[in-house]
């Protein structure tokens, strides 16, 4: 059993349960809401997410990190119930490491995708009960095909490959339209954007989402709060530092009066 390198199986044998259904009490506000996006740009994939966590009308936290690195080459951006999402990331992180260390080879990109779907399927009862719905976007670099890829999911675990971009969360309807417009009629398609311009687009998109969705946190310059933006290329995952985001935001996002 252990020889298969299946960490999730190992956890289950030890009595671990993931995605237990629990009926949501009426009137209970479960923290969720978000805007996350992933888009293919010139050198790979950019993944970004706002930092607000809300429960009903309440802003719970404004420094949430929803773009989580699972390993050096893959990222899971999460929308939905954070408790389930963080647990998913923990399981995935350990599963990929355990596989690599036992089998002495990296889990294939397809294998990683399967692991994400599998967890979402395990989570279906909790998702339907209303206490654990998670709708993530998975992005990573596929070394076999030498390409960065984006996948998005529904709450039942179905997996879809995004050709150009993917969005999720309560603010996503707003930016989905913008992404379509920019990609189709903008000066150049998203896939041709260099790193800096792709980052500017991500900041503009998240600011737009925050404009129309109260559950999405935009940029808060007074508190020096910027979205999380990560880039995935053949070299691995790289986080854009806040200082760079600040600079780009002030130069290309804020309209001078």
């Amino acid at each position: 059993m252990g020889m298969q390198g299946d960490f999730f199986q190992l956890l289950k044998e030890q009595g671990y349960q993931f995605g237990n259904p629990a009926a949501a009490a009426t009137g209970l506000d479960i923290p969720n809401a978000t805007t996350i996006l992933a888009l293919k740009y010139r050198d790979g994939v950019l993944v970004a997410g706002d930092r607000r966590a809300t429960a009903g009308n309440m802003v719970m936290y404004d420094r949430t990190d929803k773009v989580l690195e699972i390993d050096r080459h893959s990222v899971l951006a999460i929308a939905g119930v954070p408790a389930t999402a963080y647990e998913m990331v923990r399981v995935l992180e350990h599963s990929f490491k355990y596989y690599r260390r036992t089998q002495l080879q990296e889990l294939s990109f397809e294998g990683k995708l399967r692991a994400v779907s599998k967890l979402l399927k395990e989570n279906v009862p909790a998702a339907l009960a209303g206490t654990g719905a998670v709708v993530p976007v998975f992005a990573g670099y596929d070394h076999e095909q030498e390409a960065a890829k984006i996948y998005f999911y529904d709450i039942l675990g179905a997996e879809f490959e995004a050709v150009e971009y993917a969005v999720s969360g309560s603010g996503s309807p707003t930016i989905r339209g913008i992404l379509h417009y920019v990609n189709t009629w903008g000066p150049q398609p998203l896939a041709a954007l260099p790193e800096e311009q792709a980052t500017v687009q991500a900041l503009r998109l998240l600011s737009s989402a925050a404009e129309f969705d109260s559950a999405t946190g935009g940029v808060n310059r007074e508190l020096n709060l910027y979205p999380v933006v990560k880039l995935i290329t053949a070299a691995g995952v790289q986080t854009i530092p806040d200082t760079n985001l600040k600079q780009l935001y002030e130069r290309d996002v804020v309209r001078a009066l």
Partner: protein
Amino acid sequence: MYEEPYRWIEAVGNRRQYLDEQFAMGAPVVALAYADGIVMLTVSRGTPKLYEIYDRIALGGMGHPADLEKLRFSLLEMAHVEGFNRSPSDVTGARLMKYGLAPTIKQAFEEIYKAPFIAKILLAELGVKPERDLFLTINYDGNFEERRGWAALGATPAVQLEMGRYIDSQSGYAQASLAQAVEIGLCAWAVGSLAQTSSGTSDGESSSIRESAEKSEAEALPDTTALLAHVRQTVAEKSLECVVLERNGPGSSKYRALRADELGRLLPPAVRASDSH
């Protein structure tokens, strides 16, 4: 017949002798601290002997590949379940050794109706700060040791002491660059390898360890040129394996196996020369 205590002691003694013979031809393993972390190296004949156990823990082994594999899996399982249920910082080399490896190995060694593990294991743990780096070794009988700075696996404890004596003679090795650390490691490896071939299996019994350690105190260590020449000879037929735990490496996993081309650049010229022919 083992019910009598005397018989049992005799049987354990026989087992010791049998195991010492198994390790006589094994390749030593060296691990030492350097400026940016820990480097571990050995020379292997096909099957790898150095492995990643957890974010900051590496394993080096001597012995039968099947036994090493079994112990490696039990460590991996323990480390990952612990890291998941508690936190990665709670996975420590000392706990893996004391509660994971040692009881299993000791029990197998003393259950004389069953086969013992033909394995000696070295765990290197990278601390958050250099002074927290820890090295643990365990013998085939379940006896384990904790050290700072370096650790070695060799056919006998005397060989291991000799290898350590070489590393200790290189003052300031903990501040060495990776290339310097690789050279020191290779030389210590050669000290062990030469000591094993020259002494054969003579000093397997613990009584002679102190004696031989004292004796060797007086003897001068072989010079670097001779040691590197020995490495060059060995590497020509076998393959050099080298891994590092890098304190400032990216991400949470600090373990990295050096690829052949990178290792090629790090090797001292005296060893590298063998690549050309």
